[in-house]
């Protein structure tokens, strides 16, 4: 049991407390976790139905389709990041705790990624096989998602914070964040393409890494500011 007194409750403690809370919540409604995943799988599987079954076409499309589906799945789950907390008043309470807001936000984003980003990374290679991707493509697909999806969660947190309590928030958030997701999409899907055509995905992946670093530093502040504004 965490027996932290009022004095030595550190930043790390606050972070852990939020992550633990959100993971517990996610476990209580396990359906949520699975549905993001299923959404991803279904969207990826819809395309062959809409487009036709030729493997050659499908192989060209595969990285793009998987990445777009990941974008959409991650975006859909954004709505959950703050809005439940907003509606039942726990967010209000969170803003009034003596902990620095960016740390709390980072905790929430991390928990969100564990629940909605990580499963996508794990299942993506399987979907890639459906589209007949070669092994090196599958590897780079998974790696690019591993580096890219946290960026999506981080950028998404800003959008989710801004649209809190706004009517039609669910769709509005997509409007705000999808354009910002585009570089991640381009380098994510581009990396897989490059790997498949034998050019090497080094450059793409490093750029994705740079995005991740930048987002880690800036997004928690921006999202924190967004939350404060939304609560006014």
């Amino acid at each position: 049991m965490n027996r932290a007194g009022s004095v030595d409750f550190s930043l790390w403690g606050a972070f852990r407390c939020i992550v633990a809370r959100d993971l517990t919540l996610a476990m209580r409604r396990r359906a949520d976790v699975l549905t993001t995943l299923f959404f991803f799988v279904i969207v990826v599987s819809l395309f062959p139905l809409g487009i036709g079954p030729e493997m050659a076409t499908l192989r060209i499309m595969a990285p793009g389709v998987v990445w777009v589906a990941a974008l959409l799945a991650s975006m859909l789950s954004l709505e959950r990041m703050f809005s439940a907390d907003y509606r039942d008043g726990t967010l209000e309470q969170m803003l009034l705790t003596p902990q620095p807001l960016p740390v709390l936000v980072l905790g929430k984003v991390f928990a969100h990624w564990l629940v909605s980003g990580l499963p996508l990374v794990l299942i993506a290679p399987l979907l890639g096989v459906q589209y007949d991707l070669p092994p090196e493509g599958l590897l780079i697909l998974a790696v690019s998602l591993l580096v890219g999806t946290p960026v999506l969660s981080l950028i998404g947190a800003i959008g989710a914070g801004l649209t809190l309590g706004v009517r039609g928030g669910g769709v509005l958030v997509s409007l705000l964040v999808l354009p910002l997701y585009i570089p991640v999409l381009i380098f994510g899907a581009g990396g897989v393409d490059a790997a498949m055509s034998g050019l090497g995905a080094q450059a793409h992946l490093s750029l994705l890494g740079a995005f991740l670093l930048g987002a880690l530093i800036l997004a928690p502040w921006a999202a924190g500011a967004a939350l404060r504004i939304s609560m006014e």
Partner: protein
Amino acid sequence: MLEVSNLECVRGDRRLFAGMNFSVQPGELLHVHGPNGSGKTSLLRMLCGLAAPAEGEIRWNGESIRSLREDYCKEMTYFGHLAGIKEELTALENLRVAVQLAGGDSAEDGLLDALDRMGLAGREDLPAKVLSQGQKRRVALARLLLCPTRLWILDEPFTALDVTAVKMVQQLLSEHLHNGGMVVLTTHQEVDIPAGTVRRIHLN
């Protein structure tokens, strides 16, 4: 000590109040009352720093709460129209998270004790969503027993509580005032506090 000077609140087209001045000293309870829509909630949200005043300043021990921010939060507990209870967590978990984040002592015994005092013995491990309206509010109020803050800002804390629970909370407020705490409170019911000074503000 909480001081308010020349406070003005504007909502939409309407100016709810202006030029408001008051202070709350240790051992004092301020009962804000007034008819529906007179701006009580708006006032309380400004006092705890969630909303910005249109004009005027709110000071805690002489410093503006805008500049203090987290230091002010260390000394203040707010309880609003929304209870701040997560439906999926149990009563115990809800209380634990709230106390941890507020920097209070989150030892298991203390938590169970507090829930017990709020009449929730035997319900600690039920998810909050199956609790009744009043029981949820009780879980939220249990926080007051464990947070060592000096200023409590309570927006209609008696809503949905039955008679026993209302008495309990009034008792709790007395104790807090007795120990030099401060309370700002709204409620449409009568307040009956044995200890401490009760002052009133009427909004119209």
